[in-house]
C-alpha cells in the first residue's frame, strides 16, 4: 500500500514541472492522454467498448431488456448506469457494495449521457405505460491510472454508439441501432495549488486539491458539471476550465464517433 501514497519528492517534482507547463509523461497542462477505443469487444453484450485513456483501462458493456417504464416517465425507456471498481484494477479498490466514490462516478457518467439526450429515450418506448427498453450501462474498470470520470464516460458513449437493440429476439421487429442524437464529451481538470491540469494521471489526481468535470455537447454547450475534492475554485478558474473542456471535447469527440 505504500506505493499508494505519492511521495513528497514525487509531489514536489510534479508541481515544479507543472509550474513550467510540463508534465511527467511529456504532456502540456491542457492536453489529455492518448485515447484508444476498441468497439464490440464483448459479443455477449448488445454493445461494448474498451477504452484506454493513457494506462487507465475501462470496459463498458451495454445490455438491453424489456421492462416497465417508471410511472412518472411512461413514454421513455429506462437508463441505468453502474460502476464496479473491481479490486483487480487497483490495490485501493475493495470488493463489496459500491462506495461513495463509485456511486458519484456512476452518477456523473450517467448525467452526462442522460442530460445531453445522447440517446433518444422516447424512441425506446414500446407501449406507453407498459413496455419500454431498459438500457443497462455496466462499467468495469480494469486498470486504474487516474481520471476515471473521463475514461468511463468515453467508454460508455462509445459502447452506446455501437449498441444494436435485440428487437428480433423479443418479437419486436428488426434489430436496430440505438437512436444516438448527441455526443457528450466529459473533460476533467484537476487543480494542484494554483495550476490546472487536464486529464490528471493517477499521481496528479492524488495530489490534487480540487477537480472539475465538464461535459459538453457537439455545440459546445454545457450538459453536466461536477466539482469534487475538498479544495475550491475561483470563478475565473471555473470559466477557464469550461473553455478548455469545450476545446478538448472537440478533439476527442471524433474518436468516440468513428467505428
Amino acid at each position, binding site marked *: 500500500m505504500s506505493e499508494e501514497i505519492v511521495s513528497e519528492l514525487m509531489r514536489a517534482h510534479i508541481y515544479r514541472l507543472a509550474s513550467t507547463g510540463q508534465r511527467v509523461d511529456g504532456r502540456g497542462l491542457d492536453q489529455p492522454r492518448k485515447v484508444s477505443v476498441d468497439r464490440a469487444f464483448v459479443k455477449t453484450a448488445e454493445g461494448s467498448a474498451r477504452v484506454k485513456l493513457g494506462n487507465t483501462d475501462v470496459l463498458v458493456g451495454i445490455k438491453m431488456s424489456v421492462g416497465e417504464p417508471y410511472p412518472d416517465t411512461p413514454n421513455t425507456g429506462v437508463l441505468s448506469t453502474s460502476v464496479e471498481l473491481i479490486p483487480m484494477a487497483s490495490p485501493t479498490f475493495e470488493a463489496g457494495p459500491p462506495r461513495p466514490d463509485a456511486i*458519484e462516478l456512476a452518477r456523473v457518467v450517467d*448525467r452526462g449521457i442522460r442530460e445531453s439526450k445522447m440517446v433518444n429515450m422516447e424512441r425506446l418506448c414500446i407501449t406507453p405505460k407498459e413496455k419500454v427498453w431498459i438500457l443497462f450501462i455496466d462499467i468495469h474498470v480494469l486498470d486504474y491510472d487516474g481520471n476515471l470520470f473521463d475514461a468511463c464516460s468515453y467508454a460508455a458513449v462509445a459502447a452506446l454508439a455501437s449498441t444494436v437493440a435485440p428487437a428480433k429476439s423479443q418479437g419486436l421487429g428488426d434489430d436496430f441501432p440505438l437512436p444516438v442524437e448527441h455526443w457528450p464529451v466529459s473533460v476533467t481538470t484537476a487543480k494542484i495549488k494554483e495550476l490546472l491540469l487536464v486529464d490528471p494521471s493517477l499521481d496528479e489526481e492524488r495530489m490534487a486539491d480540487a477537480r472539475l468535470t465538464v461535459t459538453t455537447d457537439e455545440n459546445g454547450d*454545457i450538459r453536466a458539471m461536477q466539482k469534487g475534492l475538498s479544495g475550491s475554485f475561483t470563478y475565473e478558474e471555473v470559466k477557464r476550465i469550461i473553455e478548455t473542456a469545450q476545446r478538448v471535447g472537440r478533439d476527442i469527440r471524433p474518436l468516440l464517433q468513428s467505428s
Partner: protein
Amino acid sequence: MEDIEHIEKEMKLIGSDGRRLDGRSFDELRPIRIEAGVLRRADGSAYIEWGGNKVLAAVYGPREAHPRHLQDPARALVQCRYNMAPFSVSDRKRPGPDRRSVEISKVISEAFSSVVFKEQFPRTSVDIFIEVLQADAGTRCAGLTAASVALADAGVPMRDLVASCASGKIDGVVCLDLNKDEDNFGDADCPMAIVPRTGDVVLLQMDGHLTYDEFQKAMGLSIDAARRIYEMQRDALRRRYSVTLEDILKESPPTAPVAEERPVTSEEDFGPEGI
C-alpha cells in the same frame, strides 16, 4: 398523474408578465428563514425554511473519529450525512441512503472540508447531519446553508461560513432558485456554494442544457444570492447569541446560549465583521 404532468409540460413556467408561476421575478429568491440552535443534544444546530423546504442541520464534534482506522493523524475528518425523511416527498421514500443521498453527502462534505480548520483537531471528526423534513427542490443548497450555521453554532473554527444557492433555466430563461415544478419541467439546474468572503466556489454541479453564456448568467445570479443568504446566516447567529433571544420557532425554543464556553470562531478567522 401522468396526464397531469403531460399538461404541465405544455404549461408555460413563465407568464406573459415575465413572472414565474409563484409570482417571483427571474432573480428572486423564495422566502428564507433561518434559526440557529434549535436542538438540545447536538453540539450545534440550525433550522431553515426555504420556500417549501424544511431542513434541520446538526453538528457533533470535533469528537473522536470512529472506527479508529478512519482517523487521520494530521487533521479532522469532515463528514456529512444528508438524509431525506420518508415523508418529505410526495411518493414515500424508503428509509436509508439511496445513491442520490450518498452523492449529495459527499459533495457537501467536500464543500465544508475547505473551510473548517481541520488541522487544529487531528484524529477527530466533525459530523454534520442534514435532515430534509419537507422537500421542494434545492434541498442540498438549503441543507448546506443550514449546516453552515450549525457548524458556527457548534463553535467549529472555520475560515468563513459557506452560502449556497442554485440557478437554472426554465422556458429558456435563466432564473434563480428553482422550485419543485421549475426543477422538474425546467431545462437545467446548477447548484453551487461559495465562501462569501473570497468568492471561492466549493460546490458546483450542473445538469441540463446551458450555453456558456447562460452558465455565466446563472453563476452571476447565484453568487449575488449567496451573498444575500450569507447575511441571513449571520443574522440567525446574531439572534441566537443576542441578549434578547427571540423565540421565533415556537416548537423548538433555542436552548440557553453557550457562546461563552464555545466561541463560534475567533475574530481573525471570521473576518472583520465578526458575528
